């Protein structure tokens, strides 16, 4: 136990409000809150939530576009003692409802703009025709999804007093809720604030969705340092040119994003011609950075530190490396060493023993999550593993394949399962496949990540799916197009845009390998 184990995420905000009451804490939609103002607003909202019946350990979903309401809702629910799950307004209501039911969420918070969508998701989750609903301060609304008598019992300690849930793509077609304790996130947030040297004069640019683990840095490292979190409007995320303009306009000093966005800013955003002079530190995570663009960035950044952070949502960031200024594209890139004093990282071979060769990356320590919330239950996938120092620890097997050098640097070698990264988003191919198989008339399907010319794309090979009674005058080409469009339309109702397959291919039969299983490798290599 360290003295950090009692730390609360909303406490980071309260501490900075005492230390720097008049410093800016949050800038969003043209308005700035000081630490004192933000903390007072959070206090008031937390009181409103308690008087509306929220009890310690209840699970609350925050379904609001990225903006002040979402941040206030998250902090207020944390302060009220809830386990808080940020949710994405762009997700189909069916998927949101899976999360609500699966994580035992009894209350949803919405902004004016997301209220309608929130009602749809609540209805889809079985909240009943007229759920208990009410307006809160600062443009927030609450909708009850479970009657007080029906809400689940609090989770085991330490999350009986609140926590944080981030949903990721699971292999069963239902999103998995990654349950983190206050301390799991706080250990990361404090380490990152210190390592990146954040101070109260920093302006931290927050570009990712609040459902993405990158934003725990934006919110909580920023609060720990007394810096200002500057929220980028959601609509700019798809426009690298706008992101560059926003970095300039908002005089961002610290920025954390996925390589896809950095590359977009380089290729289409004009960042090389007009580099934001205010930037003092930058970091990336979520997927490997292509070597050439990375080398370009190191030139552009000059003395500005550029960090490579690695870690699945389940462990927060667990290894890091400051990319050396002289690094060139012909060198291998490391995800760095374990975060000192917080986690221990090792690579284990198929025999379950530490190996100097290639194996699965295992993580143990203060930032490792509590377990998955799925189908209403908490499952802890960690197990006790003996690391190479002889100490047995509660460890999470990441599914990432890599090797570790004698001096502790880790090099990634891909995945051992069906999880892929596309444009920085973590997608389990089986999650997409489950959605395809849930469509009427689909009899078989295989969803694969393509090799070769279509590398990085996700294709769905589908058997069946047709209406059966296509009009006689239609050409087979027209019918094929109609069926694939119908499949995509069906998927649109089940999956977020970021998870849709790039292409749907109708197949009379799926190829099988010698063991009689669908030959995914053959499908991945096929050019059609």
């Amino acid at each position, binding site marked *: 136990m360290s003295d950090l184990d009692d730390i609360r995420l909303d406490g980071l905000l309260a501490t900075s409000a005492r230390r720097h009451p008049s410093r800016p804490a949050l800038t969003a939609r043209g308005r700035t809150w000081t630490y004192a103002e933000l903390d007072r607003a959070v206090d008031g909202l937390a009181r409103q939530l308690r008087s509306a019946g929220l009890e310690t350990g209840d699970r609350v979903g925050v379904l609001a576009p990225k903006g002040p309401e979402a941040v206030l809702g998250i902090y207020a629910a944390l302060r009220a003692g809830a386990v808080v799950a940020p949710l994405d307004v762009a997700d189909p209501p069916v998927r949101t409802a899976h999360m609500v039911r699966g994580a035992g969420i009894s209350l949803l918070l919405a902004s004016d703009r997301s209220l309608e969508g929130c009602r749809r998701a609540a209805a889809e989750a079985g909240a009943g025709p007229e759920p208990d609903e009410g307006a809160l301060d600062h443009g927030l609304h609450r909708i009850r999804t479970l009657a007080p008598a029906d809400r689940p019992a609090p989770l085991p300690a330490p999350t009986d007093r609140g926590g944080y849930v981030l949903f990721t793509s699971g292999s069963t077609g239902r999103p998995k809720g990654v349950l983190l304790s206050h301390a799991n996130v706080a250990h990361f947030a404090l380490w990152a604030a210190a390592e990146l040297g954040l101070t109260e004069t920093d302006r931290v640019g927050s570009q990712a969705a609040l459902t993405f683990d990158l934003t725990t840095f934006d919110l909580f490292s920023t609060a720990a340092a007394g810096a200002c979190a500057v929220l980028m409007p959601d609509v700019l995320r798809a426009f690298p040119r*706008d992101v560059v303009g926003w970095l300039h306009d908002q005089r961002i000093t610290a920025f954390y994003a996925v390589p896809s966005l950095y590359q977009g800013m380089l290729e289409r955003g*004009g960042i090389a011609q007009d580099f934001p002079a205010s930037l003092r530190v930058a970091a990336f995570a979520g997927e490997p950075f292509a070597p050439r663009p990375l080398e370009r960035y190191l030139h552009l950044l000059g003395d500005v530190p550029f960090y490579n952070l690695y870690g699945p949502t389940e462990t927060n960031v667990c290894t890091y490396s400051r990319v050396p200024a002289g690094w060139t594209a012909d060198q291998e890139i490391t995800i760095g060493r374990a975060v000192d004093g917080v986690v221990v990282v090792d690579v284990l071979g198929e025999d379950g023993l530490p190996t100097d060769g290639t194996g699965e990356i295992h993580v143990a320590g203060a930032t490792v999550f509590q377990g998955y919330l799925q189908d209403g239950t908490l499952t802890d996938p960690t197990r006790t593993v003996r690391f190479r120092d002889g100490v047995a620890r509660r460890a999470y097997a990441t599914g990432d394949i890599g090797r570790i050098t004698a001096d502790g640097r880790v090099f990634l070698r891909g995945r051992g399962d069906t999880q892929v990264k596309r444009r920085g988003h973590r997608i389990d191919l089986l999650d997409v496949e489950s959605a395809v198989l849930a469509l009427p008339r689909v009899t078989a399907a295989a969803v694969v990540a393509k090799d070769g010319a279509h590398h990085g794309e996700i294709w769905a090979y589908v058997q069946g799916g047709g209406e059966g009674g296509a009009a006689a005058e239609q050409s087979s080409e027209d019918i094929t197009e109609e069926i694939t469009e119908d499949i995509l339309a069906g998927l649109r109702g089940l999956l977020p845009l970021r998870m849709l397959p790039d292409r749907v291919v109708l197949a009379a039969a799926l190829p099988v390998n010698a063991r009689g299983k669908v030959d995914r490798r053959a499908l991945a290599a096929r050019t059609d």
Partner: protein
Amino acid sequence: MNTVEDLCTLISSKITWGRGEEPQQLRPDTPLLEQGLLDSLSIMQIVAALDARAGIVLPDAEIVAANFRSPQALWSVLEDIRAGAAR
């Protein structure tokens, strides 16, 4: 690509519509970004389709949120580009 309606059709073909959503409901003033209809991939597909089907090359500096907030906003940019090319 003679009218803003043609542009609506082109944009509509690059959106993955859900069941029960009517693609033809796209109107010149539909708030594309606010309604979350476009993502980075569909935006690049629209840019590519404008080039392939209408020979209009949208410069990088014009691929910004303000120009994609509605079909009408994008149509105004296309008209400006064509007027510039005709001059």
